[in-house]
């Protein structure tokens, strides 16, 4: 498969500094003008088990991941074994594991059957000869990689300086080791991959993961308090926001559990600041009663779920789109909510801002879905800019309006379902934010007329929101495609790549993407299904949760579903292979 990219895998045992090697390589590749989309695979351990970085890079824009590994670096025995298994036939393996002949079973057969090009460097000796330590084997291998890729060694040198800026004593020796690796020559021909870069202007690009992007979106949107309990794969949001808290002055609090985090966020939102919580599915389970309270007292609340496969502890460090049902159906009682889903770093930056605006405007809980593959994977994306999404709070602040407020304005029955909201302390007209059923001032009522009207008032917001929510977006020619897909979340990346790859094979594909999932917009969707005959859905879960939602809200039926639930993201190959089965054109 030609996906207009090179896929590099760096593999080793978990806890051996793999992520910093991966980071250094990606940053240096970016400086060389490449577009990057990468993923990290690692087990839920501190030390041990195989881990890797899979870095897709290309001189043109790539959106999703490919699993066709062109070139791999094995940092140790675990890494070399992993690379042997996953490299494509004819792929290049670079490593420095000198006992590999003895310790890997069936080695000659594997190498022969896959026609792998294996380059074993005496990396340990090179590192030691150049004054380095054993750990600098990694740097020697990177130096050699740079030669194979035909890249300027200076870009790696510069990145080493940045990477070790806090440990200046080891900068020079690492540079020497990288240089020695770069200059190492095999008696036979040194392999080479033509990855000539178009020299994109990398200064207008950033290399970033989805969780950090979401955190930056929160900062941009004026979030002033972040509450969380650590849970993979959402934890890096907490860590990043805490790291920059002296710059942002944001209050970042690790709470004693997820219930507390959600309650503190709701309390802070009620008082009138912008607060945020993020977690994964299991943590969200504990937050659901607070979602229900938010729905009842009409206090805004935004919760991010960075999904991983469940149930229970499931696969903590792997990815899924399996908590859409959780986001939609969780929490007791009937109330209005919005569910939206990130698809990449940029949409994480933007969606958190939309989520906060929608939550405040409509005074409802908003659940923002992300995924491990988005949150922890890196990509190059145009630099985020300030002030692209204005803050909308929908609170009463003007003095004359404040002065005119009556307590019963707070939960007044209105045609849109939205009543006036003002912050505690801002008006003499006080109100009761009552978790018990209440009337317009918030006073408890069990009267059948009042209870019925108030429940309805809260629920008719759904109609108001539907009228104002953006429709899903279509990618590719919207009509008469050979095959069409409907999906959400991270599926968008490999879908966009696949549309291009399939076009090159003379197959016309298009894709309808839901950024806003609930309440479900159906007009454009129905039109799309009319104009395209061969429509599939694509989802990272077993049941087809979005497909089922659409079927329940429309007359559409989706017997053809591309589903994946094994903890791995969709790769472009998954889509192209599926299309090959469903479209008879090649």
């Amino acid at each position, binding site marked *: 498969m030609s996906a207009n990219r090179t896929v590099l895998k760096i593999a080793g045992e978990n806890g051996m500094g793999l992520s910093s090697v991966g980071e250094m390589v990606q940053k240096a590749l970016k400086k060389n003008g490449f577009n990057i989309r990468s993923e990290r695979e690692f087990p839920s351990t501190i030390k041990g088990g195989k881990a890797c970085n899979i870095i897709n890079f290309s001189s043109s824009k790539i959106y999703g991941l490919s699993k066709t590994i062109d070139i791999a670096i094995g940092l140790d025995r675990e890494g070399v074994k992993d690379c042997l298994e996953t490299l494509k036939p004819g792929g290049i393996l670079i490593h420095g594991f000198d006992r590999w002949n003895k310790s890997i079973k069936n080695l000659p057969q594997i190498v022969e059957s896959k026609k792998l090009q294996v380059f074993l460097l005496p990396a340990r000796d090179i590192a030691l000869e150049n004054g380095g330590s054993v750990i600098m084997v990694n740097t020697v291998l990177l130096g050699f990689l740079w030669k194979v890729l035909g890249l300027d060694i200076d870009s790696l040198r510069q990145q080493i300086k940045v990477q070790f800026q806090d440990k200046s004593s080891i900068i020079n020796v690492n540079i020497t080791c990288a240089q020695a690796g770069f200059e190492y020559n095999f008696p036979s021909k040194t392999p080479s991959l033509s990855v000539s870069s178009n020299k994109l202007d990398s200064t207008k690009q950033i290399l970033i993961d989805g969780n*950090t992007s979401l955190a930056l979106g929160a900062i941009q949107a004026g979030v002033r308090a972040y509450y969380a309990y650590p849970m993979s794969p959402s934890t890096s949001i907490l860590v990043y926001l805490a790291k920059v808290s*002296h710059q942002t002055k944001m209050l970042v609090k690790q709470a004693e559990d997820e219930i507390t985090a959600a309650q503190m966020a709701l*309390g802070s939102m*009620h008082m009138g600041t912008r607060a945020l919580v993020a977690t994964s599915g299991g943590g969200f389970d504990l937050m659901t009663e607070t979602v229900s309270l938010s729905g009842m*007292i009409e206090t805004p609340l935004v919760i991010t779920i960075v999904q991983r496969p469940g149930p229970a502890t499931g696969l903590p460090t792997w990815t899924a789109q399996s908590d859409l049902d959780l986001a939609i159906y969780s929490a007791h009682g009937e109330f209005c909510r919005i569910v939206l889903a990130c698809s990449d770093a940029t949409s994480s930056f933007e969606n958190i801002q939309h989520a906060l605006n929608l939550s405040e405007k409509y005074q409802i809980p908003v659940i923002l879905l992300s995924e491990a593959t988005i949150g922890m994977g890196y990509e190059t994306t145009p630099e985020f800019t300030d002030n692209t999404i204005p*803050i909308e*709070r929908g609170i009463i602040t003007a003095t004359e309006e404040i002065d005119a407020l009556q307590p019963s304005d707070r939960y007044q029955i209105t045609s849109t379902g939205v009543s006036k909201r003002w912050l*505690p302390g801002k008006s003499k007209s006080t109100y009761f*934010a009552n978790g018990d059923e209440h009337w317009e001032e918030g006073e408890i009522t069990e009267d059948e007329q009042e209870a019925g009207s108030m429940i309805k008032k809260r629920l008719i917001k759904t109609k108001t929101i539907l009228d104002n929510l953006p429709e899903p977006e279509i990618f590719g020619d919207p009509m008469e495609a050979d095959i069409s897909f409907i999906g959400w979340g991270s599926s968008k990346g490999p879908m966009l790549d696949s549309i291009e790859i399939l076009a090159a094979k003379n197959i016309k594909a298009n894709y309808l993407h839901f950024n806003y999932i609930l309440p479900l917009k159906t007009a454009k969707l129905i039109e799309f299904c009319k104009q395209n005959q061969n429509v599939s859905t694509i989802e990272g879960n077993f049941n087809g949760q979005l497909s089922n939602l659409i079927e329940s809200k429309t007359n559409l039926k989706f017997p053809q579903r591309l589903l994946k639930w094994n903890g791995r993201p969709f790769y472009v190959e998954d889509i192209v292979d599926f299309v090959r089965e469903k479209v008879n054109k090649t």
Partner: protein
Amino acid sequence: MSQLHKLINKAEEFSAYESDQKHTWCSGCGNFGILNALKRSLVLENIKPQETLLCFDVGCNSNASDKIKAYTIHGLHGRVASLASGAAIANTKQKVIAMAGDGATFSEGINHLVHAVRNDYPITFIVHNNNNYGLTIGQASSTTKHDFAMNGSPDGVIPEPLNTLQFVLSFNPSFVARSFSGDIEHMTKTIQMALNHRGFAYVEIMQACPTFNKATPQEWYWDKIFDIQTIIGYDKTDIWQARKIVDSLDKDLAVGVIYEKSKPNFVEQLKNREGLGSELIDEVKSTSITGLLQEFR
């Protein structure tokens, strides 16, 4: 001037807290007295209704959420300490008081209490301890007397009651006080002191429940309480003395401020917000992220 005289001069301020909502407690319920003391203490501290956020848990006590005219939240069972703390952090100028029963505080939300005390969030936390679940008609709580038959435990409660003040004192709190629902004047004074505390002020009210708590009726408390100030040389900054004084659950029940220390509260200890002077609610605005992007370029 007596408390009552001071209040007479503040009749208008007091009436501002009055709500027209119908009370739904049993006659003789300790909640009437506690609600009265709460209003008195707010008025005597010159706190206006719009300057408060009164946070209520779930239970008989928290049905007061609309019986006092102020900014209130009536939240979820067991969670009020966290809800109120999150609110208080966002705007320390608004007076945040949390109210909860013994069921919420020592069963459903016991973890929240532990960490709210440890974090020293700037709220006043008033526990209405009537030794049972009143609103669900008389089940045992963590403070119900051993062997006493309750709805749901007709053969008597098996565990010994929790010593609530020992429990709270073990978390290195900054303010612990106790009072009794029959003594409105004492409760008022105690809540007033709590309102002036800068951190987490834990106030436990021993509350009579004439309907479901037959084990410790009103007279039982009157018989056993004594003012801690009557102990000569009692040092309320000595935590070991405090722990000793609250050891018994059946006799010599000290009321008043049992332990107090002055230290910076949670908000005051936030290093990244030192000297900022603004509240979180005043800081919501589009914030430039350009400077933060450098490491990703």
